[in-house]
């Protein structure tokens, strides 16, 4: 089956279309959406097994020869991310059922989630810069629809800004693609990796590389392009926020990771130095935000920005430890962010507010929730043996081996701030005098808690069994560090 690597894109697409036919039948919507996400998950797992056994999978659409058609490539990195994205979408759908409300479910909510998954999986899989743009637009269109879904006033207001920022970054994307095409004459990533080293004028290529950094930086919310993220992500309800926080910025991170290892390596002294500095600034800016706010959603949202900085710092080191650490941390971060947003969402529902100052004493009434949150918070900060630890350890090691030892020191120091910001939620919401809580039905609570707990357990397994997952991570890192594996797989014919 040469088309296997397209299945994680096609299955959600098919289900998204089918879901459009019966918007009013809520129970059928729910079961179809769960079935679709489960099928995507199975396809992703099958693909992972296939890629691990047979190496990088590549296909060029429409039977065109390789550099001319649109190539789709699945190496271990992309398949790991596709798997995580499908897994998170599955849990987000489970979490949405008790929380999102029937009015939203009736108006193409699950369709929107499925289309978002199409865009995310497509962006992770594609091997063509312009096709990446198309898939990014697919996921952006679905995210526009989801961010404004329900049409509450803050949502309308914030979605206008979100839309505007993304339209500008899309126009920049097209411009950057135009420059790249005029210099290299190709847009196939593998072909670019062959052609770029042959071009002698590295100046203009450096400019193009920085343009792409700006474009992907808008999506990944790096410093100073993260300004839109806290406001926009704050507006939609928790399940959508979890989906966005876990997946959308990661697409930008993945795009930087791919382009900055595969072909924008002609002037690493400038581009990767810039990336390292920007990522450290991103971490610092995120820390300031995470400590400044007394709002549970805001605190976790700023933690997204911190994580983006940590991952990109690992990428900028361009050595084995840094890259492997980044890949591990990327997968960990997708899972832990979704889990944290789920848990914080439950806390917010219990208190009826997201303001930390109006919370307290939850440990007496919901002790289990408290312990699960504590584990997730430790995982976020990277306390061994939880899943944040191996990734961060490798990234820090990469920094010490590379030229930016000061970056590693900052990452270590900010880990404490991350822990502090996550513990503040624990201290304010779970300790102290019990405050008034909203009535919450036992069944609803349980249906919200189960997906959250399962996600936390998955992150624990990822952390404790890091040794078991390391071959996968190393295999993914190997492809990034040796572009020839990727090139050979795509241009084999």
């Amino acid at each position, binding site marked *: 089956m040469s088309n296997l690597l397209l299945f994680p894109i096609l299955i959600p697409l098919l289900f998204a279309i089918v879901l459009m036919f019966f918007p009013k039948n809520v129970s059928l919507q729910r079961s179809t959406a769960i079935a679709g996400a489960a099928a995507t998950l199975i396809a992703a797992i099958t693909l992972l097994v296939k890629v691990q056994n047979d190496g990088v999978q590549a296909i060029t659409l429409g039977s065109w020869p390789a550099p001319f058609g649109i190539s789709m490539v699945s190496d271990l990195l992309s398949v790991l991310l596709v798997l995580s994205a499908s897994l998170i979408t599955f849990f987000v759908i489970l979490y949405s059922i008790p929380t999102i409300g029937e009015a939203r479910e009736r108006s193409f909510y699950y369709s929107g989630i499925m289309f978002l998954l199409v865009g995310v999986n497509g962006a992770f899989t594609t091997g063509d810069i312009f096709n990446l743009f198309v898939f990014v637009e697919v996921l952006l269109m679905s995210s*526009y629809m989801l961010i404004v879904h329900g049409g509450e006033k803050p949502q309308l207001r914030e979605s*206008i800004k979100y839309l505007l920022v993304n339209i500008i970054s*899309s126009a920049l994307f097209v*411009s950057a*693609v135009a*420059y790249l*095409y005029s210099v290299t004459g190709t847009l196939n990533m593998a072909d670019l990796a062959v052609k770029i080293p042959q071009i002698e004028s590295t100046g203009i290529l450096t400019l193009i590389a920085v343009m792409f950094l700006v474009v992907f930086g808008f999506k990944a919310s790096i410093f100073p392009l993260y300004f839109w993220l806290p406001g926009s992500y704050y507006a939609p309800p928790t399940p959508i926020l979890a989906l966005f926080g876990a997946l959308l910025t990661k697409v930008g991170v993945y795009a930087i990771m791919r382009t900055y290892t595969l072909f924008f390596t002609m002037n690493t002294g400038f581009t990767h130095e810039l990336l390292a500095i920007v990522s450290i600034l991103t971490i610092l800016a995120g820390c300031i935000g995470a400590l400044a706010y007394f709002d549970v959603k805001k605190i976790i949202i700023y933690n997204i920005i911190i994580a983006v900085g940590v991952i990109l710092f690992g990428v900028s080191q361009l050595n084995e430890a840094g890259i492997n650490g980044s890949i591990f941390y990327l997968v960990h971060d997708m899972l832990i962010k979704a889990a944290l947003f789920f848990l914080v969402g439950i806390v917010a529902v219990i208190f009826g507010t997201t303001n930390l100052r109006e919370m307290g004493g939850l440990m007496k009434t919901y002790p289990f929730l408290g312990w699960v949150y504590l584990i997730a918070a430790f995982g976020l900060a990277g306390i061994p043996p939880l899943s944040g630890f191996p990734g961060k350890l490798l990234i820090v090691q990469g920094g010490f081996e590379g030229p930016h030892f000061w970056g590693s020191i900052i990452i270590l120091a900010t880990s404490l701030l991350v822990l502090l910001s996550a513990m503040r939620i624990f201290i304010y919401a779970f300790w102290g005098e019990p405050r008034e809580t909203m009535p919450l039905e036992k069944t609803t609570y349980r249906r919200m808690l189960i997906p959250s707990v399962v996600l936390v357990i998955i992150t624990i397994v990822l952390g404790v069994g890091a040794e078991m997952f390391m071959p996968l991570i190393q295999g993914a890192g190997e492809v990034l560090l040796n572009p020839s594996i990727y090139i050979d797989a795509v241009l084999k014919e």
Partner: protein
Amino acid sequence: MEIIMSVVIGFLFMAAVYLMLSKSLIRIIIGTGLLSHGAHLLLLTMGGLGGMAPPVVADGVSVADYADPLPQALILTAIVISFAVTSFFLVLAYRAYQELGTDNMNLMRGTEDYE
């Protein structure tokens, strides 16, 4: 020809930035339209304005006469996307105007809901 196109693109970008910096939502939307037009023209110009014949195989046309089909295909895709985004933006602006009662971006600062 490329020089003229570059000037036109620059002008489009300039106008787009000017419009997007204004307070009225509808001007901002027109600005985004101009911005994507500029980006599309840039894509076309950067691909080279060489051949004039349509990139479809025909008798009596040598290879050098064909226009580069790739930028055209890319632009077509980009135009369709920007068409979709712009129409979505228009609907959103209309809904926002109804709900919020203003199209002034200054009055849409979302601070009152946060502390």
